[in-house]
């Protein structure tokens, strides 16, 4: 019996500095495609913040500290209306409740150290989740994942700051930059579905869950859709697991 091996998997040795630099470079390359899509979106956030009449420093502040794409756009409206802090908290909870599900597949166990894990969970955005759970990311080290998350946030904060500085130069009638978010998810969905080519039921179940949630509880579409989708996957898992034993 090997109690040591059973009780705890061997801890990987800390990444040496040279290796860490190559991992950061690799992360920079990984971020070049989808990650750069955050730039136009951050830019849009900065423009929206200045057009709403909030002070410019709100752009880097929201982007750096709140760091939750779609919610930050909502936060602009809430703060302009001086909504009570309890309303801000509740809205944040509802919009970001989906992140609860990300713990199921995000490879946090590969990220080392308390500080690393703390930042990694803080920066667990939809984009970071999509990029680190894809097939090519299966071999990524914790250092590479952390670097990617940090680079994504730099794009976001940078975009928002530039957007806030340029905001007053862009006329009010130029709208629609926020479509960058839709385009980002369209690309992420296409890539994720293409990667699991043989698995058509998964995107179909997801689509049905989303449409059902939209029809039944449009105000809480995201958490409802994720819950429906999870239940559908569990049912499907049980059904496919039982079949061979009956055959």
């Amino acid at each position: 019996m090997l109690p040591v091996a059973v009780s705890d998997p061997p801890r990987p040795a800390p990444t040496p500095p040279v290796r860490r630099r190559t991992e950061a470079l690799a992360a920079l390359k990984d971020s070049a495609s989808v990650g750069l899509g955050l730039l136009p979106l951050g830019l849009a956030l900065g423009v929206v913040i200045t057009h709403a009449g909030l002070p410019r420093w709100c752009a880097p502040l929201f982007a750096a500290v709140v760091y939750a794409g779609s919610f930050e756009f909502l936060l602009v409206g809430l703060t302009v209306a001086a909504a009570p802090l309890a309303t801000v908290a509740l809205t944040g909870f509802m919009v970001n409740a989906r992140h609860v599900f990300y713990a199921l597949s995000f490879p946090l166990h590969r990220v080392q150290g308390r500080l690393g894990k703390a930042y990694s969970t803080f920066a667990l955005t939809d984009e970071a989740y999509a990029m680190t759970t894809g097939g090519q990311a299966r071999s990524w080290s914790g250092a590479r994942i952390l670097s990617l998350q940090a680079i994504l946030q730099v794009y976001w904060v940078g975009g928002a700051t530039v957007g806030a500085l340029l905001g007053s130069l862009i006329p009010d009638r130029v709208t629609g930059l926020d479509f960058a978010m839709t385009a980002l998810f369209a690309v992420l969905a296409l890539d994720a579905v293409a990667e699991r080519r043989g698995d058509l039921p998964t995107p179909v179940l997801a689509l049905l869950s989303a449409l059902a949630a939209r029809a039944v509880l449009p105000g809480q579409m995201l958490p409802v859709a994720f819950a429906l989708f999870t239940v559908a996957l569990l049912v499907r898992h049980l059904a496919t697991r039982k079949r061979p034993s009956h055959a």
Partner: protein
Amino acid sequence: MPDTRYLLLAAAVSAAVNWTLRAVPFTVLASLRASKTLQYLSATMPSGIMVILLVYCLRDLPLPQAHAIAPLAALVATVGLHLWRRNALLSIIGGTTVHVALASTVFAS
């Protein structure tokens, strides 16, 4: 304009809610890592979640109206570019450009 103290507090409250939602589930799930069901979920969920987020972005599409043409045309441009070149940045910038051009001119509200 809202005062500085309020803005700082709003950002702090949002950050706290957000981080809690992202971090706490991991402490609950750590003990379940070996579960076959959890492994199945972790393999299938990512692609479905992206589909749901895409539908969520399009939830307010004013379908019967002409206003819906700008986002729909931009979506077609994004998907078309992506199937053609498989270059995420090109697809995102191309689609967004189409949307800004249409929403700011022909379909300006």
